[in-house]
């Protein structure tokens, strides 16, 4: 499969269909794969694809270096896992990239992808994906369990979790959909989010991060993976996904034509809490 991938990328680069491919290369140790930009056909040999290819690549398509490559000529190729494709859908939907500028080489099972890729290299379900699926199911169970608690218990739980936050903003840096040039957390006039890691500020940051991804989070799980203090961020994200699904029948990252749920409305949206 890897040979096929390398071969195909060589072809794409030689035929000038793409002028850069974002993929993975071997990292500093065997359990690490890091993102790499391939611009010449002979460099395609550096590519790897294995169970350690976890970091989301869609993030790199917005980097200024990559954008400048695109300006020269041709498209930017990207080796995409299902989560990458969903992130790309989100970015196209929000007009951050143009569909024609990217060439999506999907790697995985056909049924896992939204139908916007340019070509697919089919592989059986990887161990990593299988593991992630069981993790997802576990997390949903955990959420259902958590919802039965009283407000005091919930508050105590989240306060304990948020108190761990050290405000490193790794969750933001890794998120493929957190693309603001100046993040609200970096604004200091007015300073919406206190930079000190205290309980009030941590609450603000974690709430706002989750809220800004409401209806946009494509469920890649990178924020939780990047978090150095293991805050269960995906629990909050998944809960919001559930709400969006339930209330607006929408799932992020599937169709670039559909507007995001929080930037549109229905006159008969149903709620019970407004007096």
């Amino acid at each position, binding site marked *: 499969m890897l040979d096929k991938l390398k071969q195909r990328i060589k072809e794409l680069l030689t035929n000038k269909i793409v002028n850069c491919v974002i993929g993975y290369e071997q990292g500093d140790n065997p359990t690490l794969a890091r993102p790499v930009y391939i611009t010449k056909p002979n460099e395609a040999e550096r590519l790897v694809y294995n169970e350690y290819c976890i970091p989301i690549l869609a993030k790199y398509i917005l980097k200024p270096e990559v954008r400048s490559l695109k300006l020269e000529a041709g498209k930017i190729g990207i080796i995409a896992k299902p989560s990458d494709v969903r992130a790309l859908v989100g970015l196209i939907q929000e007009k951050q990239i143009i569909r024609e500028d990217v060439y999506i080489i999907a790697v995985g099972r056909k049924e896992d992808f939204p139908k916007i890729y340019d070509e697919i290299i089919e592989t059986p379900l990887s161990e990593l994906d299988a593991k992630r699926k069981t993790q997802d199911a576990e997390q949903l169970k955990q959420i259902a369990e958590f*919802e039965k*608690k009283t*407000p*005091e*218990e*919930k*508050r*105590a*739980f*989240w*306060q304990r979790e948020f108190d761990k936050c050290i405000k490193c903003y790794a969750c933001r840096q890794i998120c493929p959909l957190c693309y603001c040039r100046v993040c*609200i957390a970096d604004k200091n006039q007015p300073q*919406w*989010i*206190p930079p000190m890691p*205290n*309980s*009030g*500020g941590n*609450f*603000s940051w974690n*709430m*706002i991060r*989750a*809220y800004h991804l*409401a*209806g946009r989070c494509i469920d890649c799980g990178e924020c939780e993976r990047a978090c150095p203090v293991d805050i269960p961020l995906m629990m*909050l994200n998944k*809960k*919001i996904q559930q*709400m*969006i699904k339930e*209330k*607006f029948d929408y799932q992020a990252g599937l169709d670039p034509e559909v507007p995001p*749920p*929080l*930037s549109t*409305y*229905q*006159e008969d*949206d149903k*709620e019970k*809490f*407004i*007096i």
Partner: protein
Amino acid sequence: MKQNAERKTQDAERNAQDAGRRTQDAFEPKIVAFLCNWCSYAGADLAGTSRKQYAPNIRIIKVPCTGRLDPIVLIKSFEMGADGILVSGCHPGDCHYRSGNYLARRRWMIFNEMLQFIGLEQDRVQFSWVSAAEGGKFVDVVNKITEDIKKLGPAKEYNAS
């Protein structure tokens, strides 16, 4: 002598009464009310010009439209020491900007449930539709939220100061 004794008992009674009132009313919540310029603020104005009485605990902030209100503003209010928040706008269909309150409604639907998932008491943040003609409703809403928050007590958890 008799007069003195009487005065002393009177003083004691008055002191006891004062002390009782102080402990009873010790907690006066700070409630921030975000009112839209076109309906709810005018509704509050109507309540005022109609000489209606309502709880003095709210601090009104006028916003152009509820659709302008980023939830970070609500979170910031808690951070800066608010005990409760009221957000109020035009009834659906009445928005001065045609769709601001519809958009706001969707956001609140998510934000409100999110706050409950985090474990914030349901009555801390309340939302309402108050039109420019509903001075009476405004009074009711303010009195209700003040009562609710007095029951809940101060919001210490998220206060950053």
